[in-house]
């Protein structure tokens, strides 16, 4: 084999071309990694809202909280299904929320966006121990007070502590607290009293969805069978984690598809760049390649060596790309969740799988971009050595 240092030093000698090509590849890897990190960020943010031993019950045919409605009187039936855990006082751990969406002004004055408004009971807050007030206080039951998720607290007009938010005409809410919820999607919501929110949106006597805590995740099938048994009630049950996974699906597919499409388009340019660089390398080193062929190195060895050099070049770019993408971990991103049509804030989540995949993508670009030049190199006749 031709020693690796031959390729490394040749890349170092042509440092300006090497760097320019690597930056092109790096940009593609950066875009791809960023899109995948965004998808992962969304998925994790939504999945943090779910618990493995929780189950959700919705109206049959609904796929999100906005389109589902269950009468308050039916909550008790759901809560009495087998497998539902009970608290210290023997009451089943089951809560129903009212979920609605309002269209509100962004704080930066750049338009409007949707906010999820969740009406909850004190039991509903206690049901989610990850929810903690970090500024101000909890809203008092039966009042127009609301608390705001940390991620959107300053993104919308009126969501500052002490601010006022208009839920509906003449139905304003006063912000008395800011809460965290373990980085989950709840942090992109506004929570108020169940009855006040239901009244504001004309949904009295209804909840959107019921959440129950099971004795164990293994009991889900029995619980679901009991809840879904009565066809007249028309309920669908599913594990909470699965619900959030589905909630992220459309948006995740959209982000991934956008990222991949952009990366693929960019990669065509980067591959052409790598190809031009490698063609240049082959042309400049024609005599050298001839010498290697004259000394007895086979066509395959030459092909592999030049292909390897192209991959090295691309991996260098890939490393630059993933290094740049890794810094995005600190950046927060806000976009529409297609499931609820509301704004959700999440961070880029760099994982080793994503970074490795993006790097491999860079390497593949090197293989594709370097293939034709490597073939040209391998076809160099040994007699070229004599031509000097």
């Amino acid at each position, binding site marked *: 084999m031709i*020693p690796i*240092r*031959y390729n490394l030093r040749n890349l*170092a000698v042509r440092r300006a071309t090497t760097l320019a090509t690597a930056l092109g590849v790096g940009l593609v890897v950066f875009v791809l990694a960023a899109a995948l990190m965004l998808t992962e960020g969304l998925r994790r943010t939504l999945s943090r809202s779910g618990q493995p031993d929780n189950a959700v019950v919705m109206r049959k045919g609904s796929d999100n909280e906005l389109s589902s409605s269950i009468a308050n009187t039916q909550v008790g039936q759901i809560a009495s299904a087998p497998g539902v855990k009970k608290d210290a006082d023997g009451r089943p751990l089951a809560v129903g929320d009212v979920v609605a969406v309002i269209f509100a002004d962004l704080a930066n004055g750049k338009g409007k966006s949707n906010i999820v408004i969740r009406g909850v009971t004190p039991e509903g807050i206690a049901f989610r121990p990850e929810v903690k007030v970090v500024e101000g206080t909890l809203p008092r039951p039966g009042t127009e007070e609301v608390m705001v998720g940390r991620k959107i607290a300053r993104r919308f007009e009126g969501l500052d502590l002490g601010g006022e938010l208009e839920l509906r005409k003449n139905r304003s809410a006063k912000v008395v607290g800011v809460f965290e919820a373990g980085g989950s999607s709840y942090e992109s919501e506004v929570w108020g009293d169940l009855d006040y929110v239901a009244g504001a949106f004309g949904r009295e006597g209804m909840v959107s969805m019921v959440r129950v805590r099971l004795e164990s995740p293994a009991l889900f099938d029995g619980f679901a069978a009991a809840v879904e048994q009565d066809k007249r009630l028309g309920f669908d049950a599913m594990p909470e984690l699965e619900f959030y996974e589905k909630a992220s699906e459309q948006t995740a597919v959209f982000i991934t598809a956008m990222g991949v499409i952009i990366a693929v388009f960019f990669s065509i340019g980067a591959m052409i760049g790598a190809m031009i660089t490698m063609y240049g390398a082959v042309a400049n080193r024609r*005599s050298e390649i001839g010498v*290697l062929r004259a000394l*007895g190195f086979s066509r395959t060895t030459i092909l592999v060596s030049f292909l390897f050099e192209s991959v090295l070049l691309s991996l260098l770019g890939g490393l630059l790309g993933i290094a740049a993408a890794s810094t995005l971990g600190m950046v927060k991103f806000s976009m529409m969740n297609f499931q609820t049509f509301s704004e959700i804030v999440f961070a880029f989540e760099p994982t080793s799988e994503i970074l490795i995949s993006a790097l491999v993508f860079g390497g593949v670009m090197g293989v594709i971009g370097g293939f034709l030049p490597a073939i040209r190199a391998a076809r160099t*006749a040994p*007699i070229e*050595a004599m031509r000097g």
Partner: protein
Amino acid sequence: MSAEATKADDGHTKPRADKPTIIRCQDLGRTFWRGKERLDVLEELDLEIPEGSFEALMGPSGSGKTTLLNIIAGLDRPTRGRIEVAGKSLGDLSEAALAKWRSQTIGFVFQHFNLIPVLTAVENVELPLLLTKVPASERKKRAQTALRVVGLEDRMDHRPQQLSGGQEQRVGIARAIVHDPKIIVADEPTGELDRQSADDVLTLLERLNREFDKTILMVTHDPAAAERASVLRKLDKGRLS
């Protein structure tokens, strides 16, 4: 057709008629096409070179010297005729087999030295050994020994651009001998050198021929270089004269 000019009593190695033939060309021809124009660069060429001789090949530009050298070294194939080198009929070898044969049998010395610029002297010399099963540590030792033979033990870690032309050519010679080939082919080895460096290189080639029994075939335009060979052959219009 074969012609040999033997120098006598000049202190140099004489052709060894008693030795077996190592290079044999029979009715060799090589034709190139430039568009529709036919160029017969070599024609009906017969040649026998005994093992261990040091032969110079002279002739005007376009006479076919380098083409003949290329064919003998297995870099090119004849259009007609038969060529046998070191017991192998080169026409019978596949391209891969020919490459392997070259790596074992031939040492190359080029006019333009043709060292790999990004590799040090010792790394350049080591290249032919990468095609063998010699372990890495042994490869380096052999490359260092070859550089000592050519008097460059103090330039082992220098890159080609840090060496003079004469030193570069000596590295080229070290590369040509490191894998102990039977034959060294040299294409204008002094063409790029000043007189002193050319003399040093020719002395080295003589030494390789005399002390290490290498068969050397050298193409040259330089009469002073040809003088140093034991046999001088002249080629004109594709025929030995």
